[in-house]
């Protein structure tokens, strides 16, 4: 059997990910510059940590929203300053100042930090040290590549099944069994990481005549290496396919299962992998924003003052006015906790005015 360097395969995977994200010349330009100065990446990491720790403190009631925003903003300012500094350096080093203007736009705004962070982190989208198969192999490359082969075979068969279902073809008994086994594996993967150590030992020489013909393209042919494993061919071909499709399907099946047995709502398993965590983040930030939008005691006093104008002149009015005033302050304080506080308070005042001048 044609041997294959397993280490090279993992190198290739890492390269592949880098390449695919560096297609944009703009991102490539920034990242190449950032490669030299690691400072901005560190700052972005620190920003993430800072926000997480601040959120926790906020949830525990140790800080209020004002402080949260003040700290995050000041930190973001330092990142923007660092980018500006880098930009200045780049322009200084640029021998040709006649470059097209978009190359000078390395500056960044606060709203763009999120996207910026994504661009930078994507470069490290794949690392063998975060690859579950590689971790399970305990750093043994030969074992790791075998696990990869097994996984590639399974993914290949499953995508073929999905293709068939998508084209509304009928599945035969064998395929139905495969589908059933796949679903069992998905359910199993809820609680453990499923390994696929088995793969076909078929070689190219064992293929049927039709398949050999199929492998002959216009100018190149892969059937020259007769002792090549077919599974290696599948691994290469699978790089053209998107296994995100499989993950999306598996996630839906998993979500159904978890909802059925553990009563966790399925919306927590959205398409993006960290959607559930994002949602929690968004909820906390919304709570902070809500707290920020509340009227302060001073503002409440002003609302009360505005309400009192021209309402305390005659004796009869004063009596009625005192009754109204007694419930005015506690009521608007209660409304202040609601998200639609402005509409509520306006409606309430309108209602009281109508009552007062009845």
């Amino acid at each position, binding site marked *: 059997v044609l041997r294959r360097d397993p280490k090279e395969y993992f190198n290739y995977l890492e390269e592949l990910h880098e390449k695919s994200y560096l297609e944009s010349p703009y991102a490539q330009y920034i990242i190449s510059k950032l490669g030299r100065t690691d400072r901005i990446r560190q700052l972005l990491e620190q920003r993430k940590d800072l926000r997480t720790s601040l959120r926790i403190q906020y949830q525990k009631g140790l800080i209020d929203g004002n402080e949260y925003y003040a700290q995050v903003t000041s930190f973001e300012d330092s990142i923007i300053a660092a980018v500006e500094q880098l930009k200045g350096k780049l322009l200084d080093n640029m021998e040709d100042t006649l470059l097209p203007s978009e190359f000078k736009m390395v500056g960044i705004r606060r709203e763009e930090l999120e996207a910026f962070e994504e661009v930078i982190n994507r470069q490290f989208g794949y690392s063998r040290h975060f690859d579950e198969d590689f971790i399970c192999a305990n750093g043994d490359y030969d074992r790791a590549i075998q696990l990869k082969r097994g996984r590639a075979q399974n993914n290949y068969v499953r995508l073929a099944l999905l293709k068939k279902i998508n084209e509304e073809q009928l599945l035969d008994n064998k395929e139905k069994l495969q589908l059933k086994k796949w679903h069992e594996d998905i359910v199993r993967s809820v609680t453990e990481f499923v390994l696929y150590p088995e793969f076909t030992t078929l070689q190219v020489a064992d293929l049927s005549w039709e398949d050999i013909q199929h492998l002959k393209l216009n100018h*190149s042919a*892969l059937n020259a*290496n007769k002792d090549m494993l077919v599974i290696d061919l599948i691994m290469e071909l699978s790089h053209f396919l998107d296994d995100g499709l499989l993950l999306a399907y598996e996630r839906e099946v998993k979500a159904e299962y978890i909802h059925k047995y553990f009563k966790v709502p399925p919306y927590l398993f959205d398409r993006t992998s960290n959607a559930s965590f994002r949602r929690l983040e968004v909820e906390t930030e919304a709570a902070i924003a809500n707290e920020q939008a509340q009227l302060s005691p001073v503002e409440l006093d002003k609302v009360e003052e505005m309400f009192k104008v021209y309402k305390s002149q005659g004796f009869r009015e004063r009596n009625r006015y005192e009754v109204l005033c007694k419930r005015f302050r506690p009521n608007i304080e209660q409304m202040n906790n609601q998200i639609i506080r402005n509409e509520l308070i306006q409606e309430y005042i309108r209602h009281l005015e109508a009552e007062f001048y009845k």
Partner: protein
Amino acid sequence: VKENKAAERELDYIINLQNFKHELKTFYTPAKLVDFIFGFKFVGELGTRAADK
């Protein structure tokens, strides 16, 4: 000599593979590529052959 030959064959294989993938990328539309990838007869036999277990 043996090692050299093995290395040569591996290089041969890599060049073959690169040409092959390059041709697939350049001359095949996405739909045609998918048809090619799943067009093999052995798809149905994978994982069910007795020799593989």
